[in-house]
């Protein structure tokens, strides 16, 4: 085994309804920044994406993006798909590729464009993350499955509705400072509680928005990376569970996240208490609470309380999603995991501007596919 890959460059696009930009325009915008910062070219590309085939009519995505963007000479390109964790999985593929010594440098990009189609079609496409035979066929949407999780969690742990609403409020507050965020508007607990019911108890403002965006990260062998502060991808882990929720023993925990965290933390040689910040996959407010529990930050049933007590704020015990998370930064599905990774890296590099958290030396990100079926966790560390 060789050294851990080091981050040579990163790039992000603003998330939103990017009507004028194609998938390859978004890819070009993010990857150009990463490559310019790195000053080196990638030998291969791993693209995280979920629904380009279904919504944008484009499969064979890796090469289509490279060719369309024209930012660097064509190299082997692979699309990696695992629903909402596609970005995290693409990063895992890039991590393996460099760490194994097969490639010296790879570009990992997450790209998604949801605004091409009306929301019914987007909902149907995203529902393909669930089990086609046993979930989506019967009309279960991604939101309705998460509503089951939220209902079960609130009942089992007697969690007040307001505590979950407060998670959305914090995410919106954080995103105000994020130039790449989709929703840069502060909201109140009352706004969340009064917003439209989507799938009871999930209301509109419990949900992350749909948007278009791309994020890129160039990983390379340490000797190829310039700069004083080197950030290494110190460990990654992937955990899995049944694809359909009916196969689970509990609806109020996500063992896939716990498994991924165990592997990643062990590979990185860290403990959850060593983390200075964490990015969690809050596609719905309930998922942020569950993530903190399954990552081991708090014990079961304490996730929402952690937010309620202010521990997740930028200056709190463990800052969570200081850029606004999926809830407010946005959730361009297959790109989300790469956004989270880039955000952690920029925090450790001290480049997070107004969003900067104190003493950021070790940070982790969490990316979840399906309703808890496929979890990816990665740990970045400042290299000493």
């Amino acid at each position, binding site marked *: 085994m060789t050294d851990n890959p080091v981050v040579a460059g990163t790039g992000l696009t603003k998330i939103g*309804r990017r*009507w004028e930009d194609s998938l390859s325009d978004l890819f070009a915008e993010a990857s150009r920044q990463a490559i310019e910062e790195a000053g080196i070219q990638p030998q291969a590309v791993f693209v995280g994406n979920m629904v380009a085939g279904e919504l944008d009519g484009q499969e064979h995505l890796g090469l289509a993006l490279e060719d369309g963007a024209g930012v660097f000479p064509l190299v082997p390109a692979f699309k990696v798909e695992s629903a909402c964790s596609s970005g995290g999985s693409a990063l895992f593929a890039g991590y393996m590729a460099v760490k194994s010594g097969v490639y010296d440098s790879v570009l990992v990009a997450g790209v998604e464009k949801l*605004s091409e189609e*009306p*929301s019914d079609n987007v909902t149907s496409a995203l529902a393909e993350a669930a089990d086609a035979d046993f979930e989506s066929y019967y009309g279960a949407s991604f939101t309705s499955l998460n509503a089951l999780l939220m209902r079960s969690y609130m009942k089992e742990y007697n969690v007040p509705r307001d505590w979950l609403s407060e998670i959305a409020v914090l995410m919106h507050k954080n995103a105000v400072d994020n130039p790449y965020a989709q929703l840069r508007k502060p909201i109140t607990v009352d706004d969340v509680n*009064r917003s*439209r019911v989507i799938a009871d108890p999930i209301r509109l403002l419990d949900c992350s928005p749909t948007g278009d965006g791309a994020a890129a990260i160039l990983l390379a062998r340490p000797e190829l990376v310039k700069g004083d502060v080197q950030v290494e991808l110190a460990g990654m882990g992937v955990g899995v569970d049944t694809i359909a929720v009916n196969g689970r023993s509990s609806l109020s925990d996500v063992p896939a996240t716990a498994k991924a965290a165990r592997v990643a933390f062990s590979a990185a040689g860290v403990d959850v208490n060593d983390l200075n910040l964490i990015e969690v996959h809050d596609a719905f407010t309930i998922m942020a609470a569950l993530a903190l529990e399954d990552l081991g930050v708090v014990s079961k049933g304490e996730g929402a309380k952690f937010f309620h007590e202010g521990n997740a704020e930028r200056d709190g015990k463990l800052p969570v999603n200081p850029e606004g998370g999926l809830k407010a930064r946005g959730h361009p599905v297959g790109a989300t995991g790469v956004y989270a990774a880039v955000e952690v890296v920029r925090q450790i590099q001290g480049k997070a501007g107004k969003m900067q958290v104190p003493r950021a030396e070790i940070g982790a990100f969490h990316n979840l596919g399906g309703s808890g079926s496929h979890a990816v966790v990665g740990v970045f560390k400042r290299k000493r």
Partner: protein
Amino acid sequence: MKPRSAVSIYGWGSYIPPYRLTVAEISRVWGRDPVQYEEELNVKEKAVAGPDEDSATMAVEAGRNALNRSGISPKEIGALYVGTESPPYAVKPTATTVAEALGVGPFSVAADLEFACKAGTEGLQASIALVASGMIRYGMAIGSDTAQGGPGDHLEYTAASGATAIIVGPGSKEAAATLEGSISFVSDTPDFWRRYGARYPSHGEGFTGEPAYFKHVEGATRALMEELGLKPSDFDYVVFHQPNGRFPLTAARDLGFSPSALKAGLLSPVIGNTYAAASITGFSAVLDVARAGQRILVTSFGSGAGSDSFSFVVEEGIEARRDKAKRVMDYLSRRVEIDYALYLKFRGGIRLGGGAK
């Protein structure tokens, strides 16, 4: 665009059916929070055509009101355009039915125009051109629609019925208002459409806002003001296409018009979106109250997409014409509230057959 010879408005008239369906009632049926959706749209209720009404009958009512105010014989009308996206026939002009009923023709241009919600002002542009060229003396442009949105769709809350007719002729102080200039602004923008055979239209949701309505309404309005050397404060009244009660307020704010200038012509909060009739019915309501010397800006919007923007200055002759027909306010006060079931019956949403006759 400025006509080579002056063109004035001689007659205007509207028709709004009495039936009203509230947003709260539609929300009740589809399980939405009624208060919240009303606030979101800034629409309280929409006007609904009765079971014996369609775009042709409403166009005739509006046309009669306009003729009454114009004081001219229908035989003097040399062009009649009906702008609609809900013609009674897929193939067969509505304009000839309306012309015949009004006594216009046989020597008259007559055609139906389709450009989603801007078909009414499209007819106005064409009529102005025919008058300015001297080919005809008077032309009538009508916008009339019995618009429908798919059941449960966002459009169902606002898609409404109504008609307005405007008669233009050679420039005169005796007329109601004189055109200063106009502009048209179009681009291929797929924000809203209905395919052959489809009963209800489709739309691009959020895409109907910034890249569609606002780009065209604001683009046309800015270009017209620039061409005429006018600024927002030069206008006493401003009327924008009104697909809901919120978009025109935002456009006015973006462009720098005061909300008070928008008020008289903003009808969508109480009648919904009357499609091809929407902007010109707002204009009609403004002509009902405007005084000589006042300046009025009208900008339509039609999906697909485009805007026509016009600047008019009110003439002395408006006073003598005003009371010769029902005003828009008269139609607003004739209000009969219906529930969703009657609405379905009126608009053909219940399929009859089989059982009792």
